[in-house]
């Protein structure tokens, strides 16, 4: 899942300052799960902006709220075409992808980011998320006992721990486990330590030319189509 955090209110206020009619657009998938932009947070932000308006005289806006199931598929955006026709800007609480999807679908309208999209991760406990995947495009979890050193080691190195680890924690953050020690422990349990002894050549960053695109459908040669 993609994990994000809602932007501070003052930043959002500044962003929408010059637009009178604003649609706050939530996303019903990842952003809902990570408490950043689901229906509840849309509503909360809406209320917060209105309090700012009524108590501090923070601009005069008219807000609408709507939460789509997903912002990252264009078909969903068709559901808000009418609403969008009435607004001056969309404040998207979708991840960065959602913001761009809105921008692409409504080229004449500002699409503003309401959250800081942060990482791909999993829930540790309610309200706590941990990053787990860097989307490197070249997954090596097989060799690292299912623990990703590219994501979880601050240096993303491939050949074992640096010398900075202490008490099993990372040199950069005493609260963070050293990914390589975790890898070592798990490989040991799996009796696969030889995987760690192996030399891993520099990563192939070419597998991730940006921006990436994944095509899962097979292109069909028209000549091969059956009658």
């Amino acid at each position: 899942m993609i994990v994000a955090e809602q932007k501070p209110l003052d930043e959002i206020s500044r962003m929408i300052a010059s637009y009178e009619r604003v649609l706050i657009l939530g996303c019903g998938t990842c952003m809902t799960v990570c408490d950043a932009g689901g229906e509840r947070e849309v509503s909360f932000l809406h209320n917060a902006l209105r309090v700012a308006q009524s108590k501090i005289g923070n601009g005069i806006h008219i807000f609408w709220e709507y939460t789509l199931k997903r912002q990252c598929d264009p078909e969903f955006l068709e559901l808000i075409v009418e609403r969008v026709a009435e607004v001056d800007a969309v404040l998207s609480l979708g991840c960065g992808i959602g913001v761009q999807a809105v921008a692409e679908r409504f080229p004449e309208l500002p699409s503003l980011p309401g959250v800081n999209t942060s990482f791909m991760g999993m829930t540790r406990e309610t309200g706590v998320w941990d990053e787990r995947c860097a989307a490197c495009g070249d997954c090596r979890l097989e060799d690292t006992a299912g623990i990703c050193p590219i994501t979880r080691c601050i240096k993303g190195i491939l050949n074992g721990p640096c010398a900075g680890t202490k008490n099993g924690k990372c040199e950069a953050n005493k609260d963070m486990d050293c990914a390589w020690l975790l890898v070592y422990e798990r490989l040991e349990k799996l009796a696969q330590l030889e995987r760690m002894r192996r030399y891993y050549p520099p990563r192939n960053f070419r597998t991730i030319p940006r921006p990436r695109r994944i095509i899962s459908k097979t292109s069909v040669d028209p000549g091969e189509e059956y009658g």
Partner: protein
Amino acid sequence: MDSLLTDIRQNYPANRTQRFLADHSLVPTCQTACPLHMEIREYVDLVAQGKIVESLQVIRSGNPFPSICAYVCTHPCEDACRRDQVDKPVAIRALKRFALEFGGDRLIQAEAETSHIEKVAIVGSGPAGLACAYYLRKFGYPVTIFEAHSELGGMLRVGIPQYRLPREVIDTEVQRLTRMGVEIRTNTPVVSLDLLFDIGYKAIFITIGAHQSLRMRIDGEESPGVIDGATFLREINLGLRPSPGERCAVIGGGNVAFDAARTALRLGAREVRILYRRSRVEMPAGPEEVEQALEEGVEIVFLVAPIKIKREKGRLSVTCIRMELGDPDAGGRCQPVPIEGSEFNEEFDTLITAIGQAPQTPGGFGVRLGRGSTIQVEPGTLATNRPGVFAGGDAVTGPATVVEALAAGRLAASRIDDYLQHRYPLVVKETRESLTGDLLPETVEMVRRIGRVEPPILASEERSKDFEPVELVYDWETATNEARRCLRCGTGAEILSQDRCATCLTCLRICPYHVPYLDAGSTVQIPIDQCQACGTCVAECPAKVIVLRKPHDRRRVTEELEHILKTAAGSKLKPLIVGFCCQYGLFGTGTLASLWRGARAGVWIVPVLCVATVEAEHLLRALEIGAEGVFVAGCGDGCARENTASWIRQRVEKVRKILVQIGLQPERLQTFVSGTLSEDPAQGMDNFIEQVGGLYLASVMMQEVKS
């Protein structure tokens, strides 16, 4: 400013809005068990909230004579109460009595207007007859009650002793009926129905009860000194004072036996012994009844039955035999089997038989009888074989209970109405599902134990001397606390639209009772039979897709805020403070409630089901509608639920952060939790008002400086 309700609902397509407005609660087990189907959960909850008058309204709308039930109902609801799985059932009957006494039931007058010309005759004035008369009058029919005795009430009057049901209670209800225009003919035994039809009655309801005591069929049963329980009690209730002598035996194990025994004691018997042929488990009398009898000094001997009575020298020599329990019969009841050679003799002055009664239907009625001389009816309509003749109560069921008789009376009234209006007797179906299923051990473990408190009773020495009512009424605090024990079964949370559920699993992780679970299809389910309706997940669901099943619980906060907005707009009282208070306990019904509510100018209270249901956005909304300060007050340790305060603290913290970003002082938001607070919450409240006042003045001054 547009209304918050439209705000919330603008995202809802029409069918969702409809779903949002409907009541999705399930019928709780107590209500299902109640023959009258009373809205027990609702009135108990209203008592818990201290809303006694409203509670009484709910009670009255579901029961024609709640004052009688409040004293003597056998409360099948309590037997079915799911709280029993946690500790003990909610004391529903006693709470009803409390609501009646504190809600001013005595002052309530019933009214009825006549809108039909078809006259209806009711034969018998027991609870079934009275109830039928009540509802038929409500429907607008002229009604006449024919009663063989000199007074109305049936077994209420001639059976149940005064110390359990004071006569004023019956009198008050009868008076109401008279005021409603019911015509009453006492001392008028009906022997023929044809006669009634002849003199113009269009329909007849037979509710003659079951007054004929069954005989033991043993030698010497006719001897002087042997009397049947129903007759014994009737004599006393009609003003006679028979003397039971020194030593008195009562045969039987039902309510009649116990009432007879306790009455004998009150009439001066020194020793009263109940002889019952089975054991304690099989005894039909209610446990409270048995306990109170024991306290008063009644002795109970199990597995014993009389086989012969001989009258000698003015006393009764009773030969008894010991019994043992045989194998259970088809009905699951163990039949007692005499133990050979275990006979023994006992001397008594009086022997009261109370082994059951049967109806005694005059042959002139022309109705078909069934097992045990009961009148045969069609169960759904209570119609007998004679057109226009209906029957119900003990006369149909054999000796049963008041509440069943009331239910029969109510049903009969509807069916008679259908009959007279030539309507097909359609059964009104309950649209809501009934709650079934036990609480899981995991759930039970998490529910806070709160012991049941029984209403006070007269000390046993005092009560066995006269016929004063034994049971007293709860005081305010005990009653509201006892009512809070209700688990509000079936009102819990539901996922309004699985489609919008993001399956984030928040509810599953945070539920204090571990209720929600992920089913095999990866869908989150909130099993209604386990949910404790705390509402924590409702406020935490990031998709806002969980709602409480009762629309009132759902809309409560927003509607109250709307109301404050409207009312406060015109008010000059500044600063305005909005407080979200637990509707129960200290803040809802206790000492602080009145303090906070009335006395302080500018403080507006929004009562909430539980502070855990107060959403972060509610706090903001309160500020937006003009509040200068907002607080949340809950019971903390005194709460019936676990850990509610921590949720509200988190949300308050979240909103405080936003306030800082907006440029408002975070001190405008406060949590008061009793029990965990060293400081007195009332004192804290004072300080808060003062502080908010200061902030308000400061902001006014700032604005003046600016302009």
